[in-house]
C-alpha cells in the first residue's frame, strides 16, 4: 500500500465487501433497535402494517427487572468462561501431543478434528441420548459397572454438562490453531533453552507458552464471539432449565414462547452490550498480545 494509486485501488476493491458487511450488520441491528422500543405482540394482533405502539424504554425495563435476567447473564459467563478454560488448556496439551512424531499421525489428527464437523444439534443429541442418559447412556453403564449410582447429568450437573458438550465441539478448533502455532516454533530455540539448562517444564513455560500467547489470544477472541450465542446445545439438552438459561436462550424464550417481539429485541440489545463488555474486557487482558 505504498503509493497513492495502490491505496485508492485497494479502497475501491474493498468497497463491495464493506458495503455488504455494513448492510449485513446494520439492517438487523437497526430493526432490533427499532422493535425494542415498540410494543409488538403478534398474537394480540399487533403487526407492522397497522403500525406499532411506541413504548419508550418499557421493554428494556421489563427485561432487566425480570427475575430470569441476572441468572441468565451469570449462566452465559460461566459457560463461556468454562469452555474457554477447558478448550485452551486441553488445546495446548493436545497440540503439543499432536506435534510429537507418533505412529499414524494423520489419522489421529483427523480424529481430533472430527468433532468440529458435527452439527451442534447432532452432537448435543448424541451426548444427551448416547452418553449422558441416566438409564441407557454409556456413562450410566460405566458408573454401574464400577458399582456407582448413575448421575443424571443434564439435571444434576446441567451447567457442567453443557460446558462439557460445547468444549468437546470447540476443542478441535483450539487444537488446530494452537498446533499450527506450535509447528512454527523454531526448534533451535528449544535446543538453545535445553543447553541453557531449562528443564522440559521450564521450556514449556518460558519458551512454548509465550510463543503460543498470540494464538491463544486469537482462540479466546474467536471462541468468545461464537460461545456467547450458543443455542442448539441448550435447546436440545436442557431446554434452558436447571440453570442453563443463557441470555441468548432467554431472548429466544421471550420471542418464541411468550411471543413478545419487542421484549426480545430489548434483550437482544442487552446481549449486544454484554458481548461488547466481554470483548472490551478480553481486549484489555489478552488483546495486547496481538500488537506485537
Amino acid at each position, binding site marked *: 500500500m505504498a503509493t497513492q494509486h495502490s491505496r485508492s485501488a485497494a479502497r475501491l476493491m474493498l468497497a463491495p465487501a464493506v458495503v455488504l458487511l455494513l448492510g449485513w450488520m446494520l439492517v438487523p441491528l437497526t430493526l432490533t433497535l427499532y422493535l425494542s422500543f415498540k410494543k409488538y405482540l403478534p398474537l394480540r394482533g399487533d403487526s407492522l402494517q397497522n403500525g406499532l405502539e411506541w413504548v419508550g424504554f418499557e421493554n428494556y425495563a421489563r427485561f432487566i427487572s425480570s427475575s430470569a435476567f441476572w441468572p441468565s447473564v451469570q449462566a452465559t459467563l460461566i459457560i463461556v468462561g468454562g469452555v474457554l478454560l477447558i478448550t485452551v488448556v486441553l488445546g495446548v496439551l493436545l497440540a503439543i501431543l499432536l506435534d510429537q512424531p507418533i505412529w499414524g499421525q494423520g489419522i489421529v489428527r483427523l480424529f481430533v478434528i472430527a468433532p468440529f464437523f458435527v452439527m451442534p444439534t447432532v452432537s448435543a443429541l448424541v451426548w444427551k441420548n448416547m452418553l449422558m442418559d441416566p438409564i441407557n447412556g454409556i456413562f450410566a453403564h460405566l458408573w454401574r459397572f464400577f458399582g456407582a449410582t448413575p448421575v443424571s447429568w443434564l439435571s444434576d450437573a446441567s451447567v457442567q454438562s453443557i460446558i462439557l458438550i460445547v468444549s468437546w465441539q470447540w476443542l478441535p478448533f483450539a487444537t488446530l490453531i494452537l498446533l499450527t502455532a506450535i509447528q512454527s516454533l523454531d526448534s533451535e530455540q528449544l535446543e538453545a533453552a535445553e*543447553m541453557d539448562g531449562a528443564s522440559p517444564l521450564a521450556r514449556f513455560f518460558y519458551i512454548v507458552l509465550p510463543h503460543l500467547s498470540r494464538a491463544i489470544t486469537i482462540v479466546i477472541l474467536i471462541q468468545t464471539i461464537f460461545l456467547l450465542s450458543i443455542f442448539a446445545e441448550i435447546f436440545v439438552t436442557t431446554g434452558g432449565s436447571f440453570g442453563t438459561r443463557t441470555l441468548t436462550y432467554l431472548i429466544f424464550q421471550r420471542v418464541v414462547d411468550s411471543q413478545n417481539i419487542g421484549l426480545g429485541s430489548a434483550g437482544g440489545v442487552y446481549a449486544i452490550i454484554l458481548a461488547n463488555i466481554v470483548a472490551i474486557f478480553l481486549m484489555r487482558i489478552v488483546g495486547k498480545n496481538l500488537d506485537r
Partner: protein
Amino acid sequence: MGHIILENVKKRFGEVTVIPPLDLEINDGEFVVFVGPSGCGKSTLLRLIAGLEDVTGGRIIIDGKDATSVPPARRGLAMVFQSYALYPHMSVRKNIAFPLRMARLERAEIDRRVKAAAEVLNLTDYLDRRPGQLSGGQRQRVAIGRAIVREPAAFLFDEPLSNLDAALRVGMRLEISELHKRLETTMIYVTHDQVEAMTMADKIVVLRAGNIEQVGSPLELYRNPRNLFVAGFIGSPKMNLINGSIAAQHGAETIGIRPEHIFASSEGGEWHGKVSVSEHLGSDTFFHVTCDGIPEPVTVRVGGEVDLHYGDDIWLTPDPNHLHRFDTQGLRVA
C-alpha cells in the same frame, strides 16, 4: 577446562551413516574450526559434542569425564546457533540472564554477570530491547553474550556469521577472535567459509562426508595438504590441479600449484597460454589462462596492475618449491 576427546564417535540417521567412526582431540583453550562442503556433517558433529544428538557409537570425553550420556545442560558447553535462537519475547537482558536463571543463581550475581557480558560485547545500551528490535550483528552479540555468561568449558559455534553481510562478518570475526584471546576458552567453530577458517583457527579440521581428511594448523594445511581434497578446499582462489603429461613430467599423477606460486611473464616461461578472464582486485590481479596442453584454465596471481588483456600471450612458470605432487590415490607425494 575444555579438553574434549572424541573416541570412535559414530552417527547414523536411520540407514544413513553421517559420521563414520571418527577420532579427534581438542585441547584446552584451542580454537578449532570444522570446515567442509555443505552436508558433510559439520553441524551433526557439533551437535553430537553439544549433546543435542545421541551418538550411535563411541565415546565423548569432556575434561576427563565420559560425557556420552550426560544431558546437554550438564556438559558445561555453550552453543551459538546459526539462527541465533534468541528468545523473541524476552528483552536482551532476560535473554542473556536466562541460563543463569535456570541455574538458580542469585539476583545480584545474575545482574553482575549480565552487566559484565554486556560491556564486553557493547550491548549495554540495548539491554532493554527485544531481539526483534536489533540488527543482525547485535543479535549475534546477544547470542554470544548468552553463551559467555555461563562461563562454559567450551563454546560451540555453528556458522554464526553466515547471516551477516560481508563487512559485518569481518568485524565479528575479529571480535570472536579477540574474545577467544581474552577468555582463553576452548572454541569449536563450524563454517564453510575458508577465510574464516584460515584467519581464526589454531587448528582446522577438514571434513568430507563425515571423514576427517586432515587436521592441522592453517599454515600446515596450506603448505602441506595431505590429499587432493584438502588441496582444493584450502586456499582462495583454489589451487590449480593439473593432470596428464605435464604432471607426468614432474613424476606425479596430479600436480597442484597455487595461483600465488606461479610466475607470469609476457616474454617467456615454462607454459604458454592466452589470457581469458582477468579479475582486477586492485591489490592483486587474477588471470584465468588457457594453456596449451592443459584442459582446465589455470588461475594465476599477478601483483598490482598489469596491462594484459583478453587473448594476449602469456607465459607461466610454476615455483618448483611450492609444487604439490599427488599420486593416483590423490595422496600427497613427498
